[in-house]
């Protein structure tokens, strides 16, 4: 065997015969992408991190190195801290609910004899819909006086709710929209996980005495979906963390800052008030949190198949 020959004795390592592809072809192929990568991702991120140590304001001529001043100010900034808190509260509502709803839908639909395609279509529809357009619809739907939701409540004799006008409800209202648009996505991921569960396992489970669907679900389906589950949780968390459109269109952070979330605050700081330095510092915080999630996600992907 050639492998043994190369290992034994002091023989010259065999040179690969035949044409050797010039690496220049590869460089030529990759150059446009590398340039764009440097110009649109790597370069800007470095500049952004540098900006976060300055007091630069868009339009002003002066720029000063201020070290950690921006970060120190963030620690004292009540608006920023509230935005951070709101973002985490939002994620805490959206991620678990959309994952559980997605799982529930996937398992229920998987057990059906008829109509699987129809239900998948229906629940996936919100995923495709343009978020801004649907945010308009939701805003009208939940409108405090003329919204169909409130009219329905009233016709049932219940008091009406002005969800987006209420400090305690506005964030939950936005979360509901995100759950609505994310559940179908998670459902599809779970459905893919379920198709990986061999049919025979359920037959074996029936022979072994798992009569109720609860027994089957807890002892077979759920453990086998474990890896998918972890992955969906992380993905949903990242998605929820990046919420922007609904806030920008429906509440603009209001009422009274109750729906101020990280990206929106950063957007205002940078592109409304043009305080680039402190906006950059906020972006660094945002990016750091994203990186942590991404790191977890990569870990989860590595361990996707744990048996």
């Amino acid at each position, binding site marked *: 065997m050639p492998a043994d020959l190369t290992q034994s004795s002091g023989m010259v390592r065999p040179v690969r015969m035949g044409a050797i592809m010039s690496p220049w072809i590869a460089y030529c192929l990759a150059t446009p992408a590398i340039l764009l990568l440097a110009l649109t991702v790597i370069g800007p991120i470095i500049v952004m991190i540098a900006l976060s140590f300055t007091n630069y304001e868009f339009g002003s001529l002066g720029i000063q190195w201020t070290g950690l001043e921006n970060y120190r100010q963030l620690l004292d900034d009540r608006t920023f801290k509230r935005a951070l808190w709101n973002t985490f509260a939002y994620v805490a509502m959206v991620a678990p609910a959309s994952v559980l709803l997605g799982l529930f839908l996937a398992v229920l639909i998987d057990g059906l004899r008829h109509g699987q395609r129809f239900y998948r279509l229906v629940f996936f529809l919100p995923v495709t819909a343009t978020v801004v357009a649907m945010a308009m619809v939701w805003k009208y739907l939940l409108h405090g006086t003329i919204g169909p939701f409130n009219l329905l409540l009233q016709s049932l004799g219940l008091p009406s709710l002005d969800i987006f006008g209420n400090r305690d409800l506005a964030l939950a209202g936005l979360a509901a929209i995100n759950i609505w648009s994310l559940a179908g996505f998670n459902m599809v991921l779970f459905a893919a996980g379920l198709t990986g569960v061999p049919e025979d396992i359920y037959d074996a489970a029936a022979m072994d005495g798992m009569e109720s669907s609860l027994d089957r679900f807890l002892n077979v389906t759920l*453990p086998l979906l474990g890896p998918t589950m972890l992955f969906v949780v992380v993905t949903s968390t990242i998605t929820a963390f990046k919420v922007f459109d609904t806030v920008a269109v429906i509440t603009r952070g209001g009422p009274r800052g109750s729906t101020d979330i990280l990206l929106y605050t950063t957007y205002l700081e940078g592109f409304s008030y043009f305080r680039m330095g402190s906006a950059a510092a906020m972006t660094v915080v945002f990016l750091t949190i994203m990186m942590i999630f991404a790191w977890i996600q990569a870990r989860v992907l590595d361990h996707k198949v*744990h048996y």
Partner: protein
Amino acid sequence: MTAAVELRNISKSFGETQTLRDVSLSIRPGEFISLVGPSGCGKSTLLRILAGLAPQSSGTISIDGAEVDYLPPSARDIAMVFQSYALYPHMTVGQNIATPLRMRQLPAPARLPVIGRIWPGQSAKRARIEQTVIEAARLVEIEAMLDRKPAALSGGQRQRVALARAIVRRPRVFLMDEPLSNLDARLRVTMRAEIAALHQRLGATFIYVTHDQVEAMTMSDRVAVMMGGEIVQCAAPTELYDNPRDLRVARFVGSPEIATISSDELIAANEGFATLLPHTPVIAAFRPETVSLVPVAGHLEISATLQRVEQLGHEILVFLRLAGGARLTVRAAAANVTLPAAGQRLSVWLPRRTPMLFDADGARIFRARHGEPAHAG
């Protein structure tokens, strides 16, 4: 610990297509019976109906005289071993084997995956289950692997785990659906013997599905041959070989395949057959060992073209073609046979007492000859 199983007129349709037609079978307590047939003939379907995993379209099943048609799988006191083993990949071998006991003996809250472990008052039962699991594992020699996950086992070891999971609750009836088909040839032979030994030891009724006629013939008390959703014949292995009731059975059982020659061609090859065969066209079938390469008294000589020779060591297989195109195979002792080169003609001798005749539909013809009464099918 053992039971008779009675299938009466089981039929099964998937939509328009009828997969099982009126299958009836009586299985004695403690019997090892094989269901054998080409793939797609409905063996798995029948087994799944018997297990209660799928409902039959019509017909009844009784175990020890009691009808079980409306019982769920776990209440039928049946265990099943699947072709794919169907082990729970997230459980250890021990947990896999314990599952049937856990589900039956522990109350609902105690069998919840994580929380169940702390449910009070079950320690005695748990200890007993563990003991039983170890015994079952010992029986199939995997007690050293109880803490491993199925993914860390070889195919043969997984097969043993599947067996242990079936054994552990000592059911009256075992169903096995091609349990050895995913193993390599050598392991298959070993496991064959082990399953047969297990049957001896447990004394339970075994219903064993396979598409491999050798497996069926070597292991079973009786073999039921299924074709196209029907049981064509159910008999002891030797009876099946010597006395197939149907041409399809004759062809399916025995290797190399039985040779079939139409009566016209046989008579064309040697006029002497004319008096021995009925006047209507029939098909005569010859097992390879009934054909001789040397003259035998009472045999009729025909001439054939040599196609190919297979050396098996102790014996040889000679593949021939007659002038009319029919194929014929001869099994002979390897010693001292001189054969011409491939493509040359040679003479072989066929028995005068034609062993098997089949009509155009493949049904066996039992003829009264030399004053003997016709024997009933």
